[in-house]
């Protein structure tokens, strides 16, 4: 692979090096940095939303901006933060190291995916930001932002009802983003299939890598269908094709949710992988029921493709078909439950090293459980007929995607940043961040369950004072700012201890890790490993560390 290293002799500037890199680690870092920026941006939009809703009848932001804000909050968090961070960021950086490879299978294509993602993200956010500034400064309405919500239901998203260019920009951005993701998925699958270290059989794959593969399969199968739909909507809007003019509105919904339900697992499975890495390391125990965890991951991915129409229980789908989707939806709770118990029993009887990564993982299990349980409620058709599109749903998927994915991401950051930069973050600040985030999170989203039960619909820019929604909304808004503060703490932690080099030197293996990334230096050299390691179990580093123990190093149950 001639492309692995860039000749230092040429003394290219650092910027050019980052722009032209094909090293999976650098690409991973750019993904993470950019995705985190989008996280901050989409989070600020959430703060604008929560400020507006803090009390009834507020006019902090205009209704028009509100509608764009929730659209871009959702789109940004999903397409520009969670998926690229976990798959493009963690995936790119750690998967090749975890399987003992020196790079991805197609490094140049990897770089292409990255810059396509950057371009798509820029396309999506730039027009919106320009519109926002134009609005605020009184230049008038540029119409470069989309306000059709992230699911862009037709006919609202057609030219007749959303004539502004912002809708087209949004569609093109999502399409390019999807193509970037699909290429990334191809790369991941080929890499894991072809470049594993000797001895790394399927059952010895690290859990994060395993979840990443299942995620890649889901991206590979689901995204192209959405891409097809997006292209049809785009041609309907711009070239006068007639796909959505005569069809019933459910056609778009089917295409959209065929992608977007699996997208939930695309966002949460890699985060589950992250905590499945953290828990055994910090418990000093093997993961409980490894095979069950791996199989349940695959089952979730498989079942995930059969549940999409549970988003359409009140759209007018044939009732017999609805029952089928109710069944599959409720069934998917079973492999999810298996995971939760396996995680808890990984900790059970262990020797818990109570550091921030473990606490974030415990936070994940605790909050994700609530999200999972309320998902069963929403899977029951009669209950969904009452709570569909209400704040109950908003709360449910935030418990899954914030309580799950974001806690997982922060856990992963505290766990892996020392590997990436060679320095430790402050564990004290980390713990304060964790408690603030857990408290702020529950304060934000638990009241939203109550709001849903009180009949508050999602996507409303304001509400009347006579509905009894004031207090839960106020609490929720206070919670949102608490979360923001906790994220600020993380940034401070990062700036002082890693950028400012105040953190302890991490060394190769600060946590007594199990997987191959802890075998190499921190930060890893460009070629990752001098010699490709040989793997004998799912915990290659444990094996090395305990090579001389005669007792229970390899103990079986």
């Amino acid at each position: 692979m001639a492309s692995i290293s860039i000749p230092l002799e040429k003394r290219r500037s650092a910027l050019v090096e980052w722009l032209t890199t094909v090293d999976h680690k650098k690409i991973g870092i750019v993904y993470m940095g950019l995705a985190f920026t989008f996280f901050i941006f989409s989070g600020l939009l959430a703060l604008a939303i929560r400020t507006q809703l803090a009390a009834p009848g507020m006019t902090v932001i205009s209704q028009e901006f509100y509608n764009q804000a929730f659209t871009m909050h959702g789109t940004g968090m999903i397409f520009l933060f969670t998926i690229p961070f976990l798959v493009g960021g963690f995936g790119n950086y750690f998967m090749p190291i975890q399987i003992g490879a020196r790079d991805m299978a197609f490094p140049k294509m990897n770089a292409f995916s990255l810059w396509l993602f950057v371009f798509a993200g820029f396309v999506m956010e730039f027009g919106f930001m320009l519109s926002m500034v134009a609005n605020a400064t009184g230049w008038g309405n540029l119409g470069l932002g989309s306000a059709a919500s992230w699911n862009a239901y037709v006919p609202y998203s057609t030219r007749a009802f959303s004539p502004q260019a912002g809708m087209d920009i949004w569609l093109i951005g999502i399409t390019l983003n999807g193509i970037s993701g699909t290429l990334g998925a191809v790369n991941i699958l080929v890499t894991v299939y072809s470049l594993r270290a000797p001895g790394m059989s399927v059952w010895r794959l690290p859990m994060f890598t395993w979840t990443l593969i299942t995620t890649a399969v889901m991206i590979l199968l689901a995204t192209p269908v959405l891409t097809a739909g997006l292209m049809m909507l785009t041609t309907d809007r711009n070239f006068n094709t007639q796909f959505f003019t005569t069809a019933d509105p459910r056609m778009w919904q089917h295409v959209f949710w065929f992608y977007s339900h699996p997208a939930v697992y695309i966002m949460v499975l890699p985060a589950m992988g992250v905590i499945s890495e953290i828990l055994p390391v910090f418990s000093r125990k093997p993961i409980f029921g490894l095979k069950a965890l791996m199989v349940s991951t695959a089952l979730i991915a498989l079942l995930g493709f059969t549940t999409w129409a549970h988003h359409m229980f009140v759209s007018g789908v044939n009732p017999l078909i609805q029952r089928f989707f109710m069944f599959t939806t409720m069934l998917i709770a079973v492999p999810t439950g298996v995971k939760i118990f396996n995680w808890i029993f990984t900790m059970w009887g262990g020797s818990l090293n109570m550091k921030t990564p473990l606490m974030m993982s415990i936070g994940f299990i605790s909050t994700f459980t609530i999200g999972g349980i309320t998902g069963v409620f929403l899977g029951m058709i009669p209950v969904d007929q009452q709570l569909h599109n209400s704040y109950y749903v908003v709360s449910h998927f935030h418990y899954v995607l914030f309580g799950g994915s974001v806690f997982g991401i922060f856990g992963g950051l505290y766990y892996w940043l020392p590997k990436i930069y060679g320095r430790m973050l402050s564990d004290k600040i980390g713990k304060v961040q964790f408690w603030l985030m857990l408290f702020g999170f529950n304060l934000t989203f638990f009241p939203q369950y109550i709001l849903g039960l009180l009949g508050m619909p999602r996507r409303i820019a304001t509400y009347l004072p006579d509905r009894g929604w004031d207090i839960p909304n106020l609490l929720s808004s206070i919670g949102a700012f608490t979360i923001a503060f906790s994220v600020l703490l993380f940034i401070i932690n990062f700036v002082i201890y890693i950028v400012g080099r105040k953190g302890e030197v991490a060394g190769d293996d600060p946590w007594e890790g199990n997987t191959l990334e802890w075998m190499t230096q921190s930060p890893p050299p460009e070629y990752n490993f001098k010699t490709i390691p040989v793997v004998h179990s799912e915990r290659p580093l444990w094996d090395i560390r305990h090579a001389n123990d005669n007792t229970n190093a390899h103990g079986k149950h």
Partner: protein
Amino acid sequence: MEGRHKMQPIHDPMRKNLGLFGAIVFIVSESMFFMGLFLVWFYLRDASQAWPPLGIARPNIALPVLNTVIMAISTIAMIVAERGVAKNNQRALINGTAIAAAMGLLFMTVMIMEFSSLGFNPTTNAFGSSFVMVLVFHVLRVFAGVVIMGVVLVRAFLGQLNGSRRALVQACAVYWYFIASIWLIVFYFLYIRL
């Protein structure tokens, strides 16, 4: 450079087949894209009383039949090329690929004639949109295949392909067989079973 001489070389037979395996995985995702287009086709068909809708003439089958023949010749040529490179037969590789690519170009030309001979266009109705969309993406796919064949030809002329370095030819061939099978499905549903 500094690090490069420190790392030990990897002797991994899997590495040679990266391109081929990549092509197969990519084909899976392309089939899903194609499925998305066809799901919409079937959804629209089931929702309408007549398919093609009243007042729309059934498209003539002559040009598509011609194209099926072209596609078949092209596929055979590709098989010859792939077999050839495996046996280090450069002439079979170059001639086979060249014929396959020429047939691909011919296929595109016939398809463009077909577009202008249709009694409807994508703006007529949902049927027209869906029909043309499937065909347009097929033409694009053929175009992509021809471009890859161009790369194969260039590298064949440069003498970079032989029996032990032929992942590119294999990937190109697999993709081309995929295109040919998709064409059969398209031909069946858009013309024969219409």
